[in-house]
């Protein structure tokens, strides 16, 4: 069975600084998809970024980028130039069939 592990329950960063959130996963599959979702205090789940496992190039979305290491089964999220609005829970998720498997989340606090 696939599992997703986020080993950092909480992280904090100062505004304008860079922070990296870790995620590892376990699967025997070769083709799959990885996602980072953001959950602000409103509790809505917002897609941040996605990565296809068959792509070697790391995905980037504005200030958000990933470091995808397929052999190591690692999928970290880097947030550059952190903003107060980035304060949220961040969930890493794995998809192989049509269901998302989520990690336990990392609570990120951005300080002014």
């Amino acid at each position, binding site marked *: 069975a696939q599992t997703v592990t986020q080993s950092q329950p909480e992280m904090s960063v100062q505004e304008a600084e860079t922070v990296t959130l870790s995620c590892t996963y376990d699967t025997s599959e070769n083709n*799959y*998809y990885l*996602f980072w*979702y953001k959950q602000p205090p*409103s*509790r*809505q*789940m*917002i*897609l941040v970024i*996605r990565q*296809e496992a068959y792509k070697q190039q790391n995905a980037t979305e504005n200030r958000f980028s990933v470091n995808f290491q397929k052999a190591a089964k690692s999928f970290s999220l880097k947030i550059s130039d952190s903003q107060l609005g980035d304060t949220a829970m961040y*969930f890493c*998720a794995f*998809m*192989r*069939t*049509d*269901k*998302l*498997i*989520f*990690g*336990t*989340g990392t609570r990120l606090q951005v300080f002014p």
Partner: protein
Amino acid sequence: EPEVTQTPSHQVTQMGQEVILRCVPISNHLYFYWYRQILGQKVEFLVSFYNNEISEKSEIFDDQFSVERPDGSNFTLKIRSTKLEDSAMYFCASSESYRGVDTQYFGPGTRLTVL
């Protein structure tokens, strides 16, 4: 920008009562999902639905749960006889296709409180 909507935003019910949670997926999406998140825990998959049939369901999705697409726009989750442990945030999601080809977009969630 199209979005998934859910109603109600908060539902309070007595244990043993039936509840129906409603979702309106993005209009051109064909695949629909329900997830739940117990407070302080991770988001868990409940069920996926395509072409008026359940595609996949988790062990959480037992006989107390059912899903339906009663018309061309709504997608519902019914819990027949609620238990205290059903208290959670329930998220609906939809995607244009599946198996990761298209991203699942989530609604704002319905907070279910079972007393």
